[in-house]
């Protein structure tokens, strides 16, 4: 549906993004993953026509956004990182304004706003001034704005940043629902978020695309290690000695005292060996009670590590 070809954006001598190419297929939820400052926002700003690329082009079903901005922009809804809200308007006024600038027929506007408000669950704040809303509601009003005009494609830049955990879950489930009848691009620096919502992932690092694939394939065999985070009550040295003595523990790192009288550690082992039972027994014998034990999550850093080491091998 969207073809992004060789996008480059220069700022002085520095490249914000360099030769970025990927496609977004109709109907998919695509995750756009990268660390802060990797070039996600720049790419999205170019795809939505907010800024122009130094080189390269963006085609939506063959229409170039620079040559036919009106055609392309009508089909894309964009929620930038900071929702583009007018604080002095009420939600209703704001969405009516959005309808007017997005070519929604005046007769159809009211019903359309009703639908969108119901979808993003902001019916109860429609008469309130936007500046008085909580951050979660502001985000949803921003999302409502992106949905106005029924664009086929919705681009969301870090939509969950700064929200509390419950709001994050709500927004994620909303995005999943949107994905049923829209093409969605979701940018994020949080791996679990993308893993939860997206089918396919494009990873950008230092302005360049480093991978694009399904998340399953990207994370399979991330490192060949298995990591456990553990919290043990007792003296740091004692615990460390007990852990180091454990067979199969390749690497032990102290994370410091996070609870009084207890210390956190990361223990890395070969993926093939499950050391949880021997670990329990060893610490029990040493009289060091385990307060918490959980497998550490795969992080974006791990994937980068894998990707870069793959590249070195190749």
């Amino acid at each position: 549906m969207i073809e992004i070809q060789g996008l480059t954006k220069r700022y002085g001598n520095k490249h914000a993004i360099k030769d970025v190419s990927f496609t977004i297929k109709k109907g998919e939820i695509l995750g756009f993953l990268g660390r802060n400052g990797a070039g996600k926002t720049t790419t999205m700003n170019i795809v939505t026509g907010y800024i122009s690329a130094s080189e390269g082009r963006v085609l939506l079903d063959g229409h170039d956004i620079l040559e036919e901005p009106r055609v392309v922009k009508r089909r894309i809804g964009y929620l930038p990182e900071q929702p583009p809200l007018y604080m002095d308007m009420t939600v209703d006024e704001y969405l009516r304004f959005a309808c007017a600038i997005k070519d929604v027929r005046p007769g159809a506007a009211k019903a359309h706003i009703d639908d969108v408000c119901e979808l993003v669950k902001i019916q109860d704040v429609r008469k309130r001034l936007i500046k008085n809303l909580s951050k979660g509601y502001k985000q949803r009003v921003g999302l409502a704005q992106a949905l106005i005009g029924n664009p086929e494609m919705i681009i969301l830049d870090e939509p969950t940043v700064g929200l509390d955990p419950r709001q994050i879950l709500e927004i994620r489930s909303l995005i999943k629902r949107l994905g049923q009848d829209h093409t969605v691009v979701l940018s994020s620096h949080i791996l679990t978020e993308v893993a939860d919502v997206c089918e396919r992932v494009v990873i950008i690092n230092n302005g360049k695309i480093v991978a694009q694939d399904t998340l399953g394939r990207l994370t399979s065999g991330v490192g060949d290690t298995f990591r456990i985070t553990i919290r043990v009550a007792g003296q740091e040295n004692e615990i460390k000695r007990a852990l180091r003595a454990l067979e199969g523990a390749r690497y032990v790192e102290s994370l410091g005292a996070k609870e009084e009288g207890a210390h956190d550690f990361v223990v890395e082992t070969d993926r093939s060996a499950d050391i949880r039972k021997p670990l329990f027994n060893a610490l029990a014998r040493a009289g060091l009670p385990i307060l918490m034990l959980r497998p550490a999550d795969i992080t974006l850093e791990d994937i980068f590590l894998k990707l870069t080491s793959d590249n070195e091998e190749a």
Partner: protein
Amino acid sequence: MAAVWKRELASYFLTPIGYVFAGFFLLVSGILFTFNNLMSGSGDVAMMLNSFSMIPIFLAPILTMRLFSEERKNKSEQMLLTSPLSLTSIVAGKFLSALTVWLATLAGTLLYVLIIGSYGRLFWGEIISSYVGFFLMGGCFIAIGTLISASTENQVSAAVISIGINFFIWVIDSVIYVVPAEFISTALKWFSLYERYDPFSRSQLGFSGILYFLSFIVVFLFLTIRVIDKRRWSEG
């Protein structure tokens, strides 16, 4: 364009800016009217407007300072610039909203004309011509402010720079006749808004004067569009 115009117009009166502009204009013009017309018994409407001519220099920037700078700062411009609206209609909508507030405020001064009318004779030709000229001259100051607002992210600097430029234009007027070189004074005369306004206040409602003011506005709005468009391409 209508949507942008409507939103901006509403915003002028949801925030204090519209009231501050209209209030100050009517306050200062009221004081001048009281001294120059009421107390000295003058029924000259053209002279009255002449005495107001300094006010837009300082007040038009209040009207225009936030037009683009605030949106750029809040990032709400991202919604406008990624919508199907053309840049031209965004700029035109915003300019026209400021112009509408200006028109409404100016309409308030018709009260003075009514007061004069109740005590003396009104020369309608002169009044219409002066008002058209005065309105268009204010439009030029608004167009300058629009351009400056699009060039900065800070409302206060937008206002200060606009006042500076407006003031410079006003100074040109007094410099014209003391510049020794003829071609410089001719050139300056060409740029002086007050020089162009002068015939209007002498009931000469001329096509060339109107055309000059309208072109002045169009040029500045065109530059505004270029400034915004250029920023999208910027690599700085």
